[in-house]
């Protein structure tokens, strides 16, 4: 702004001069109205001493007009901007519990010139203005002037800043609750040295704070202020800076944390998650946890694997992690997890993020692993509260707990969705139905379970299996409406069928969480959703994305987004490697698996889309070829681990050869190849286990194979 002022001042005399010229010229051209200034050679630029007077004047005239116009515009914009800035600051300080009065005013004084014209700067100055101190919101009564002055001392300038009582009451309820950190301290390193008086000033007003929820923190801060402390209390709760910041606390994030710690000795890793739980794995939530005999399973979240070994769904117990407070000082670094905190804003230029409690954390390297949110059916969204109370969207531990509880107390439950999650939940609930008499219905638009993944013949076969697990399958079902009647839900299908049930589980897909795209300026993919990243999982400098939220470039298979557990592990690990300087692209192909009961299971890798042409090669299955047997051999229930993490595979006790079990259909054991332009891009190992490395190799090669039967030989499908 100062710059503009100077420019204006410089131009002003010039402008005045040219405005006179302008008038003169107008008169002249008016008199010679026939003559358009075409006689002035436009190409002629020089206004040198020998330049002809007319050209010279015209040139000056044009410049002058521009200068005037520009000057007026600049002046107006500055004023408007200043106004907006003041308004914004006022609103925000009334919103913020912490009143960094000193910093606000110092910011005000320093930056009025630079702030206004670009509104982007305004949000930036806000975070500076409001570090994360838990102090009472600015007192109302002192609001004298609405127009803040820029030149007053910090002390007095507090008042104009602490204005807008009506705004305060209106905005305060909207402010997210900050109850989790009763002893939180200032975060950002930018906080300038505070002076005591403003703190003391705010003290008496603390009790008048309109926001009722501040009752806890103000009491504490008042005590602190009374002690004469400045606004930077001694102990830090949240680290202001995390060298490695991982947004999201799921599988990808944990894998990255582990990778970083392995490669960067003494690394300090901070995970921020909006869930209340430490990082855990999701597959057991829809499988093993349901098969547990333990009545306290919803608390312990431990499950027994087929071989009897028990483990928790949490990747590591709490003792693995250090607290956020310790992070900055821990000698050998560590991994800290901030639970129930959401990152709401990302400032890429400043390399920092803002949490929902206004804490700011700066970072060197950041990973976004925010996963996604379950999609809901539109008809349910619109159906009203009664229906939504009886609907579960399944993803987190809490959803598992509530569904477990609900399913014990009702007579009928319907799963909408025929994919992995829907089918697994239906089977899990179906098994429970044997004991409890619960009616389990599953409905989906496709012709059979996993209709979008398996070729039709296998999809039909799978659907039959699901039915034997005790599930009533309604295929080709499109939900038209859902209403609540007599405390029951009535699902009306497009073809007229009516289904009455007590509870609905909607498993109709995942919406990747790209909330930070706007503030961070990150690209979102329009085809697959999620953040668009390159083959090295990088979105922008110092920002990587992994897991469900990453739409990445797969060198072999093209751009894709994968929502599987092993992919989260692989991509998280890769992101962690790249965050520590590896620069490796996504190359190790992730796999996935599904078990629909103890007798049917498959592992898959690559692009497994039923719309692609497929070639299936099958043999007959024996009793040994079941998921149960496979996990017994490898000792883990998480199938992807049986490949990678099982160092010393237990010596396989030779099982007594069981008599060959023939299935009604012949699809007992086999390999299914998915082709795209004659190249194998996906493989399903159907009841064939421990052959994933070969499948991975074939996809990696990307070769055209003339005879896929020959390729199938590599899998030894007949072997016991």
């Amino acid at each position: 702004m100062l710059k503009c002022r100077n420019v204006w001042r410089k131009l002003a005399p010039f402008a005045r001069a040219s405005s006179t010229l302008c008038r003169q010229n107008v008169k002249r051209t008016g008199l010679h109205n026939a003559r358009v200034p075409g006689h002035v050679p436009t190409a002629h630029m020089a206004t040198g001493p020998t330049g002809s007077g007319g050209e010279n004047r015209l040139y000056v005239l044009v410049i002058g007009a521009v200068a005037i116009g520009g000057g007026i515009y600049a002046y107006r914009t500055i004023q408007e901007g200043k106004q907006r800035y003041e308004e914004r600051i006022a609103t925000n300080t009334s919103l913020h519990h912490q009143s960094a009065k000193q910093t606000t005013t110092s910011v005000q004084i320093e930056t009025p010139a630079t702030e206004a014209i670009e509104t982007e700067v305004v949000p930036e100055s806000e975070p500076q203005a409001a570090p994360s101190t838990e102090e009472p919101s600015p007192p109302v009564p002192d609001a004298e002037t609405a127009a803040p002055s820029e030149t007053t001392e910090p002390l007095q300038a507090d008042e104009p800043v602490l204005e807008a009582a009506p705004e305060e009451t209106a905005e305060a309820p909207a402010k997210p609750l900050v109850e989790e950190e009763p002893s939180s301290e200032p975060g950002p390193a930018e906080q300038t040295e505070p002076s005591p008086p403003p703190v003391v000033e705010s003290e008496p007003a603390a009790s008048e704070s309109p926001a009722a929820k501040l009752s806890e923190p103000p009491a504490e801060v008042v005590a602190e202020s009374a002690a004469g402390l400045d606004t930077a209390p001694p102990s830090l709760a949240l680290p202001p800076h995390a060298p490695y910041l991982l947004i999201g606390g799921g599988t990808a994030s944990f894998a990255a944390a582990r990778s970083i710690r392995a490669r960067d000795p003494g690394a300090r890793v901070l995970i921020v998650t909006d869930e209340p739980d430490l990082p855990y794995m999701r597959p057991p939530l829809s499988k093993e946890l349901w098969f547990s005999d333990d009545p306290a399973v919803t608390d312990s979240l431990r499950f027994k694997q087929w071989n009897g070994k028990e483990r928790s769904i949490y990747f590591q117990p709490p003792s693995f992690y250090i607290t956020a407070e310790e992070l900055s000082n821990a000698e050998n670094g560590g991994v800290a997890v901030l639970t129930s905190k959401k990152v709401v804003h990302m400032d890429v230029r400043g390399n920092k993020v803002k949490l929902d409690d206004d804490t700011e954390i700066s970072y060197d390297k950041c990973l976004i692993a925010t996963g996604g949110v379950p999609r809901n059916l539109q008809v349910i969204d619109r159906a009203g509260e009664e229906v939504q109370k009886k609907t579960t969207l399944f993803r987190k531990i809490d959803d598992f707990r509530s569904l477990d509880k609900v399913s014990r107390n009702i007579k009928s439950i319907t799963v909408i969705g025929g994919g992995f999650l829907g089918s697994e939940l239906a089977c899990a609930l179906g098994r429970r139905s044997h004991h409890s008499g619960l009616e389990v219905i599953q409905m989906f638009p496709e012709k059979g379970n996993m209709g979008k993944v398996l070729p039709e013949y296998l999809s039909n076969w799978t659907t039959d299996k699901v039915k034997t697990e005790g599930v009533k399958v309604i295929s080709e079902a499109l939900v038209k409406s859902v209403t609540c009647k007599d405390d029951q839900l009535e699902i009306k299908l497009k073809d007229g069928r009516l289904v009455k049930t007590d509870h609905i589980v909607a498993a109709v897909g995942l919406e990747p969480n790209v909330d930070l795209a706007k503030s961070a300026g990150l690209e979102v993919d329009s085809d697959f959703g999620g953040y668009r990243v390159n083959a090295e999982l990088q979105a922008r400098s110092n920002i990587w994305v992994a897991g469900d939220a990453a739409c990445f470039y797969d060198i072999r298979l093209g751009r894709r987004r994968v929502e599987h557990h092993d992919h989260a592990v692989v991509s998280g690990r890769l992101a962690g490697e790249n965050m520590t300087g590896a620069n490796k692209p996504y190359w190790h192909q992730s796999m996935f698996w599904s078990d629909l009961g103890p007798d049917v299971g498959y592992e898959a890798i690559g692009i497994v889309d039923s719309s692609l042409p497929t070639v299936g090669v099958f043999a007959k299955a024996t009793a040994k070829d079941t998921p149960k047997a496979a996990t017994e051999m490898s000792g883990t229930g998480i199938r992807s681990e049986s490949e990678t993490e099982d160092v010393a595979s237990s010596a396989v006790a030779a099982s007594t050869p069981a008599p060959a079990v023939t299935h009604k259909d012949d699809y007992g054991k086999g390999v299914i190849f998915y082709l795209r332009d004659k190249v194998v891009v996906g493989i399903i190992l159907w009841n064939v286990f421990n052959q994933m490395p070969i499948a991975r190799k074939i996809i990696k090669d990307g070769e055209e194979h003339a005879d896929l039967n020959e390729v199938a030989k590599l899998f030894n499908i007949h072997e016991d």
Partner: protein
Amino acid sequence: MTTVGEEGKDKIFFVTKEDHATPSNAELVEEDPDDPYEERGLILPSGEINWNCPCLGGMASGPCGTEFKEAFSCFHYSKEELKGSECLDQFRAMQECMQRYPELYPQEEDKVPEENASKAEQTSEEASESDADSKSTSDPVQESNSTESSVES
């Protein structure tokens, strides 16, 4: 006898054991041992330890990660007759650390760290060959396997 079926775009083969008795003539691309993109086992081609190997579970990244790395590095580079004999201090430090986190490092056996080391060494030799091979390692150390699995992610 191979039987062939077709369901639209999906081809189906049923093969007997005899059909698959002859070795496959499918051509696979030769592996490049120095491919920088490939996932590595425990020991990198350069001879260094790959701390990020999934086979280590959380050992190198947990609270005792530093101690573990020191002990295991010492062991790995040890040229003594009795490998790792000069590393007792490091192993002791590691054990002390692990004892502080019984949840993470169950102390069923005192020999766990050394067994881990020797087992990992064993595996490292096989790991460089292929995934499938490492599975065939029959390892007498069942116990440490179970402790390992409880630590693994």
